[in-house]
């Protein structure tokens, strides 16, 4: 009924019910809420939280309407409107200025928009009860709103430059979220690391954008999409552009070796980490790759780069996740492997499957972090070794965690089973053995890593520690339970592909020139078998955390992430610091030289300092003599130049 009404509504950027206008509302509502909170209600915790939740709810409604319109209108594709057009109602040349800032509501943006706003809303409902008074709820809600605004901006960007601007805002929001408990030294360090790495990626992206603009004179995604293959730029040029854009995306989406900030982001409070890992900062790199996919699609080597980097990230992330001692770090590393899978899928041309994975993976990952927040708050520890036996004490958290683990592991019929099945179908259609093995192995190991977390935390005996009484553990209730139960619904249902046509998640987001490969039963069977087998093996292996002595060096190396972080530290201390010191020394010398020139001119310009008895007339004569000399020299030089030319 509503769909028919919307289908009858007029279309176009300036009409009342256009998806573009709704998308603009979804973008501006969190910003308005943030400004209201900062301007008027900073002193009232309850009012600020209420404003935050209500405005985000409105944004969710807008996002749902955008999705509904995009489903109802197969023809209404990819129209964008600049902010100037939206705000002034003007169309035409005056409003089409060069940068083309605005919002773009197409199916890709719609999918991401609903993921961002809905996760943000549920996370806020959870935070209403989770963030205690002494943690500063007003600050927390402001940060969440800011992150939502930044992420929505990335989602709706029409051009590379607008994307870069919102990438910067996302970087800042990541810093604010990871460093939320800034009193903790590790949190502050992790926030700084996340900020620096993201910023390095932004710089690479800026270089790529400069190169693209230099060559094409255009930054709009849609306009550019048809121009890459036009022969304006050689294959090498396209490859370099792809590398630079990929670096920007890799720093955000934690592709190896720029992943070093992701495990540290587990330092964020549980709701913030849930937003960060499900639809927030960690996903906007994948989104950029999807948005700029035409560029990668034009260069086969760039696609290969995506596949290699994604595959490496996926395998390393899942291996590291298996050896983490810290609950939130273990979940964070599984995010890394999923991000690797998404990039790998883009690399092998499974465009729709990759976006589907973004959508399907958001819910279980948010739910995992929210459940982990409850566990950590009740147990007052983040170490998996000190957990256990929670199944009887917190049944509700146990059930939602079980659903999240099943959904994240890809056990049918939960959400990521369907997206991983779609990826593997594409790999099978390509007959690429490496891609098939990678996806299967990552599914298998990912199931192991997630079930290991569940097994260690919920079964066995509750570890006895001093000054800790397991009897006092209480299950989640109230708003926390509400948020988690609501999140469990898309975990179960987000993957359903029963209905054909536009509502099929894979056919919804398409890229011209990339064929949608129908899933076949072989792929579904392989994924289901890998996930169930991995889950079963993990269930048996991790029954009791029994340290295997032979594996100890491997375990330590893996737990530290193969020393990549240490390498970063060494690189920063051993290379960057001396380099910056040397640069500082050179800068001082250059500065002194410039100062010397300027000072000597200034000194010569005040002859009374060094010629105490000079008369004004003599100075005038000197001036005229100088003029004559300058004129003579100029004329001689000009004569030579003109003589050469003419």
């Amino acid at each position, binding site marked *: 009924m509503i769909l028919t009404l919307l289908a009858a509504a007029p279309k176009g950027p300036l009409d009342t019910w256009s998806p573009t206008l709704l998308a603009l509302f979804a973008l501006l509502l969190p910003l308005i809420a943030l400004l209201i909170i900062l301007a008027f209600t900073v002193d009232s915790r309850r009012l600020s939280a209420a404003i935050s939740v209500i405005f985000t709810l409105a944004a969710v409604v807008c996002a749902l309407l955008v999705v509904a319109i995009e489903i109802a209108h197969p023809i209404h594709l990819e129209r964008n409107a600049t902010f100037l057009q939206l705000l002034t109602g003007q169309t035409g040349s005056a409003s089409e200025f060069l940068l083309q800032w605005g919002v773009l509501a197409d199916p890709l943006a719609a999918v991401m928009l609903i993921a961002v706003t809905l996760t943000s809303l549920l996370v806020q409902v959870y935070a209403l009860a989770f963030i205690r008074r002494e943690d500063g709820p007003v600050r927390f809600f402001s940060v969440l709103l800011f992150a939502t605004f930044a992420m929505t901006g990335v989602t709706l960007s029409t051009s590379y430059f607008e994307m870069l601007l919102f990438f910067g805002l996302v970087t800042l929001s990541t810093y604010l979220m990871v460093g939320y408990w800034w009193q903790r030294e590790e949190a502050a360090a992790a926030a700084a690391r996340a900020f620096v790495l993201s910023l390095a990626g932004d710089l690479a992206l800026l270089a790529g954008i400069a190169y693209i603009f230099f060559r094409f004179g255009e930054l709009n995604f849609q306009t550019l999409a048809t121009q890459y293959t036009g022969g304006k730029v050689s294959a090498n040029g396209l490859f370099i552009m792809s590398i630079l854009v990929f670096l920007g995306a890799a720093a955000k989406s934690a592709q190896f070796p720029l992943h070093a900030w992701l495990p540290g982001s587990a330092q964020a409070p549980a709701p913030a980490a849930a937003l960060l890992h499900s639809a927030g900062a960690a996903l906007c790199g994948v989104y950029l790759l999807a948005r700029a996919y035409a560029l990668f699609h034009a260069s086969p080597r760039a696609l290969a780069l995506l596949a290699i980097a994604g595959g490496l990230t996926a395998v390393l992330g899942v291996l590291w996740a298996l050896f983490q001692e810290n609950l939130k770090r273990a979940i964070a590393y599984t995010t890394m492997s999923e991000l690797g899978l998404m990039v790998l899928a883009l690399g092998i041309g499974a465009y729709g499957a990759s976006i589907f994975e973004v959508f399907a993976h958001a819910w279980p990952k948010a739910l995992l972090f929210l459940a982990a927040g409850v566990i950590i708050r009740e147990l007052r520890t983040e170490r998996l070794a000190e957990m256990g036996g929670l199944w009887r004490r917190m049944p509700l958290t146990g059930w939602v965690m079980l659903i999240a683990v099943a959904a994240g592991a890809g056990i049918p019929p939960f959400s990521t089973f369907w997206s991983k099945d779609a990826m593997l179908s594409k790999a099978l259609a390509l007959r690429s053995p490496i891609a098939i093995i990678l996806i299967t192995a990552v599914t298998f190991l990912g199931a192991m890593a997630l079930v290991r977390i569940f097994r260690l935390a919920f079964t066995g005996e509750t570890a006895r520690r001093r000054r800790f009484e397991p009897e006092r553990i209480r299950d989640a209730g109230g708003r926390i339970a509400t948020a988690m139960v609501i999140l469990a619904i898309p975990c179960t249902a987000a993957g359903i592909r029963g209905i054909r046509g536009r509502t099929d998640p894979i056919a919804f987001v398409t890229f011209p020139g990339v064929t949608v490969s129908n899933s076949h039963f072989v792929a579904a069977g392989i994924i289901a078998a890998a996930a169930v087998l991995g889950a079963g093996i993990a269930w048996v292996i991790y029954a009791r955390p029994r340290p295997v002595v032979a594996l100890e060096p491997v375990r330590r190396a893996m737990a530290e992430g193969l020393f990549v972080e240490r390498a970063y530290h060494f690189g920063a201390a051993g290379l960057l610091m001396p380099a910056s010191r040397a640069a500082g020394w050179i800068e001082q010398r250059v500065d002194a030289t410039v100062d010397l020139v300027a000072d000597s001119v200034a000194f010569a310009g005040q002859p009374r300092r060094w010629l105490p008895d000079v*008369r*004004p*007339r003599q100075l*005038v*004569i000197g001036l*005229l003599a100088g003029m004559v000399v300058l004129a003579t020299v100029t004329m001689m030089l000009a004569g030579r130049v*003109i003589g050469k030319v003419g």
Partner: protein
Amino acid sequence: MSAGLNLFLVGSAALLAVGAFALVARRNAFVALLGTQFMFMAGGIAFVAFARFGLGASHAAGGQAVALFAGAIAVAELAIGLAMAVLLYREGHSLGIDADRG
């Protein structure tokens, strides 16, 4: 000798020399100011001459515009210079340039 570029340039140089002499040799501030105006106008004449005959003939409007600007700025400068001269005269009842004022 027809009225070519050289004639104007010689005239311009003569005017410049007169101005420079007035600036250097005369002790009266009024005359020195007058000398600077001569020199400005010499430059302006050179610009116009080049614009009419010389290398800049293809951009004739450019040279004339510069001459106009130079003239306008010269007048502004003269106004300030005269104002200063009047102030100096009020203070010391003299317009000598070389007078030691401490």
